[in-house]
């Protein structure tokens, strides 16, 4: 990964999402997903995606760069084993660099229970200045309130 480019993308505050965030449940599968394009003044082909696994009551949010390269990820409640054997329990973010392609660190400032709020907080974190309406995953509103 071109680290400088990835950092410039994350620092760019011109990123915006105009279309509503709408989840879709995949047929015969255990997950619901959304994926929207992220407009920006730098003309970077970015997208913002989310995944919810109702059975496991976990969700993850991700910002992807060109070629669907992951730039920034939040996972609501999933243990992560780093390559150095360190263990991150609970909500965490993942950064992607050449030295550490998938390094997790604890994250408390993004909600792990309110998915709408988490999407807005994540968007703010990665420099998305505009965000349209955000829907809840299908048939999960009750579960999310119970988390």
């Amino acid at each position, binding site marked *: *990964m*071109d680290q*400088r*480019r*990835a950092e410039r993308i994350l620092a760019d505050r011109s990123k915006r999402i105009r279309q509503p965030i709408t989840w879709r449940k*995949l047929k*015969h*599968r*255990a*997950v619901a*997903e959304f994926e929207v394009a992220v407009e920006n003044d730098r003309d970077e082909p970015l997208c913002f995606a989310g*995944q919810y*696994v*109702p*059975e*496991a*009551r*976990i969700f*993850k949010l991700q910002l992807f*760069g*060109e*070629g*669907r*390269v*992951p730039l920034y990820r939040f*996972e609501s409640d*999933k*243990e*992560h*084993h*780093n*390559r150095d*054997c360190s*263990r991150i329990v609970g909500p965490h973010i993942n950064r*992607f660099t050449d030295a550490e*392609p*998938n390094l*997790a660190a604890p994250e408390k400032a993004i909600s792990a229970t309110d998915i709408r709020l988490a999407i807005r907080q994540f968007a703010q974190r990665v420099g998305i200045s505009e965000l349209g309406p955000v829907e809840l995953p299908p048939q999960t509103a009750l*579960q999310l309130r*119970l988390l």
Partner: protein
Amino acid sequence: MSIEVARDELADFCCSRLCLTSRLDRTVLGTPFSYPTGEAMELAVERAGDEWIISDMGTTDGFLAERGVTWGTPAVTRVVEALRLEQRIELRNGVLQVRCRQHAFVSAIMAVAQGALAIAGAAYVPPPRMPTVEAARSRARVRTRFIDLVRDAGLAGDVDVKVEFVGRSQHKVTVAKARNVLIFAESLKQEPVRRAQAVAFELLDLPLDVRGAPEGEDAWADRLRRAACVYDPPTESADGKLREARQILDTYFEAGTFSITEESTIIDQVTQWLG
């Protein structure tokens, strides 16, 4: 370090990751295993009468979905079928699960964990690398010049030219020409299936299951003559349906694939091919 110390460290590592937590209506078992991306594997343990149900809670499906891989992918299907026959692991709406009696509890847990890892392994490809700014600019130049070329050649006159780029740094351009539509795309071997599939089906306005098309092959032929789709399916993780769609498309379209080495090279190649 002695082998005894290594053994003790391994034991500490594994044991420290074994834990039981309660989430809503079930017990969740933490395991020492993790998916190739480092996500720890947790299994749900539920009692159903005299039996236990061990499941992956759909997290393996989440791993696959994130990579655009379906359960119909041949490499994945083979593993799932083997697990069904040999370990009695079932796949229910994207959730891997096994039922067992008390005496087989531990082996069932190991079977689900190892099965989930085998499936994830079959679908795993290393994450893509982002092209440099220079490479992106170079690509933008290729794209602009290519579009200009197509227009200059008069191909864009009455022809509906649609351009769809799918790709990253070291890319190929794939071009197809049909009677009245020209579409080209560039792609990499490891391009996620999801993107290629989305391009294919969006452009063609096809339902995801080509075989399930009610109109039959003749009707597809009429539709396909009005649109072409080009993509380069990934090698190892290619979706079976995508391959099938590609075969159908190849029946009706002439397609060419060109490796890019320099801008002029590709344009020359494509120009020559377009005639």
